[in-house]
């Protein structure tokens, strides 16, 4: 890929020249995140979250591998092995809190990354593949996060596992056999805990592979940018290094301050007290809530309280919960307008800020609240909007909307004017 003006890698000494001939790894890095990757010069701070997500993945893998050296995946001792980590292992408390809060940090970063994609329509051609792989990564993360939360074998771990695997029981006829197969038993126990541990260890490496594909696919068309106007010429871009490495370095610092404040000062703030009670199959917590990053989808699951014709409410909820993410796969074809950035889409912008964002906020809130009124009604209204937004509003808006005038080029957007535009060459704004 890449633009014709991309700088080329030059090995600086004989060793690097040798390496470049035999295994051009430095060249790969140079072209991926170094001086050889020309990036639009107008990226704002919303473009920091990709690198931060990558950092979180590494953080989780490193702390996770280390915790696995001390954790015991056996229903009899899992809970006390976690306490062993917290009390006796050198720095164990720090590693465990880093991992638990790292999951929250990872999801927070990913949600911002996804919302960047929504607002700037990063999913539109030619970046559909980047988006599709991204949704796959998000699904893998959810599976990994869910299984990881089961491992401490606290009350929420156990009952979360029971409720979520119970969702499969909603599938007609084959549901119950599938649930029993997933658990390797009739309720979560050793078999389930062991397979969850195994998969929780494996999936992050699958995610890492998917991330490489995600970045690879991104490098074919190159990064998008806040104007949504494609790169036209050299003055539209700057090399990734040193410009964006420096900017990402600063972003990483801000991220680490927030993350470490959580880790060292309020490590249990995002957790639930019930998970410090060892799993007890005979006693259910007063109300079962998943971790905060699942709340919107949990709210959608619980929003279906009445059977819909012949479809039981429970099955409707399960279908809707999975569909809520599956619709993202179809975004590039649901929203087909030529203009990408929300900055130049007046109608889309209104629905985004006054529709989608409030609906998501309500779903987040209601998912963590007990299943009672008014939360159920609120989540029904918000979930209705959620589906309407992606499946009905976006297709219609993209057909009828009249976008605002786009800048001629990224250069013009940054500098206020572009000589080429004045001269009228290639005056095909927007594409």
């Amino acid at each position, binding site marked *: 890929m890449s633009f014709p003006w991309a700088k080329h890698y030059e090995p600086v000494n004989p060793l690097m020249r040798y390496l470049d001939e035999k295994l051009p790894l430095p060249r790969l890095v140079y072209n991926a995140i170094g001086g050889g990757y020309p990036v639009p*010069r107008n990226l704002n701070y919303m473009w920091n979250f990709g690198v931060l997500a990558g950092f979180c993945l590494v953080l989780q893998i490193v702390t996770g591998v280390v915790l696995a050296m001390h954790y015991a995946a056996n229903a009899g001792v899992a809970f*006390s092995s976690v*306490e062993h980590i*917290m*009390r006796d292992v050198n720095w164990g*408390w*720090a590693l465990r809190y880093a991992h638990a809060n790292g999951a929250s940090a990872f999801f927070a970063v990913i949600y911002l990354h996804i919302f960047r994609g929504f607002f700037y329509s990063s999913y539109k051609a030619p970046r559909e593949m980047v988006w599709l792989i991204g949704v796959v990564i998000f699904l893998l993360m959810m599976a990994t996060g869910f299984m990881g939360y089961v491992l401490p074998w606290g009350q929420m771990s156990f009952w979360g596992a029971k409720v979520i695997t119970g969702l499969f029981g909603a599938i007609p006829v084959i549901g119950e056999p599938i649930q029993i197969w997933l658990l390797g038993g009739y309720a979560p126990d050793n078999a389930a805990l062991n397979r969850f541990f195994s998969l929780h260890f494996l999936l992050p490496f699958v995610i890492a592979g998917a991330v490489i594909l995600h970045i690879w696919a991104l490098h074919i068309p190159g990064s998008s940018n806040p104007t949504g106007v494609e790169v036209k010429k050299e003055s539209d871009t700057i090399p990734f290094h*040193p*410009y964006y490495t*420096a900017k990402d*370095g*600063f972003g*990483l*610092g*801000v991220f*680490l*301050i927030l993350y*470490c*404040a959580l*880790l*060292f*000062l*309020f*490590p249990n703030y995002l957790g639930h*007290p*019930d998970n*410090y*009670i060892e799993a007890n199959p005979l006693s259910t917590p*007063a109300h079962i809530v998943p971790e905060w990053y699942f709340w919107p989808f949990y709210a959608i699951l619980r*929003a*279906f*309280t*009445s059977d*819909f014709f012949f*479809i039981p*409410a429970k099955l*409707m909820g399960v279908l*809707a919960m999975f*569909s809520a993410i599956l*619709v993202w796969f*179809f975004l590039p*074809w*649901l929203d*087909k307008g030529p203009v990408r950035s929300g900055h130049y889409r007046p109608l889309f912008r209104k629905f985004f800020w006054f529709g989608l964002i409030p609906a998501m906020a309500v779903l987040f809130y209601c998912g963590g609240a007990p299943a009672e*009124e008014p939360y*159920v*009604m609120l989540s*029904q209204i918000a*979930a*209705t909007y959620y*589906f*309407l937004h*992606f*499946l*009905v509003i976006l*297709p*219609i808006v993209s057909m009828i909307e009249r976008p605002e005038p786009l800048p001629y080029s990224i250069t013009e957007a*940054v*500098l*206020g004017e572009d000589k080429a535009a004045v001269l009228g060459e290639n005056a095909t704004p927007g594409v």
Partner: protein
Amino acid sequence: MIRLIGILAGLFFSVALLWSLGNGVVAVAQQGYLKEATAESEFHLHPRELDLQSNGPFGTWDLAQLQRGFQVYKEVCAACHSLKYVAFRDLKALGYSDAEVKAIAAGFQVPGIDANTGEANLRPGLPTDYFPSPYPNATAARAANNNAVPPDLSLMTKARHDGSAYVHSLLTGYRDLNTFSVGGKHVKDEFPDFSTPEGGHFNPYFANLNIAMPPPLTTEGQVTYAPGQPKATVDQMSTDVAAFLTWTAEPKKVKRTQVGWPVLGFLLFATILAWMAKNQVWAAIKPKKPRAA
């Protein structure tokens, strides 16, 4: 085509949701709004604030208080409650010497095996042992306590909202059901049917207001504190044991914040440097402001 299918799917989910919503609204219209008030929902109290030296991100341990709290645990709570994630050796963090820890451990009987016959027996504890459970198993605990198993206390203050305050409020929160009132309203007037079952004890800080545990701390001086320590009032003993259980739940709590602040300081410094470096790098391509004509 995808858009058409999408719109149909969107309408399908929306209509199903609105159907649920409509049914909910009808139900509310017919049966009145929201949930029925119960004695639990009206009279359950949130824990009263508890001011411990270990509270907050600058907290430190008050070792004298932790030792008093340990004394309360040992002489009162340990009769029914285990502390299974805490080892005797951990008590060194409370300021006890090796010899004292050894003596404390030896004062507890832990399960062992007779070296000659191989039969299960009890032996004096060693510093490496963990606090033993007063009951051989959960069934025995249940049988001895009116069908309620006394929970392990190691993590109690982390396993409840506002855990430290909760322990203190609970221990000092036993009330007489017949006279208890909140804001002038009496339980007995509002919910005449509400009663405490046999073997239960009325305590508004407990989730369902009826706790199986009888009031453990009832009289001043129930535990004899060493000379020079505060008077062993019920409130003082409750505060001390809450402080002790805060420590047992997370012995590394103070170390955690003490590591955390320098880490945050360093990160702030490094982030400022990163910000300056970023500005330096970007200065080269910063768009020059167009001059006023």
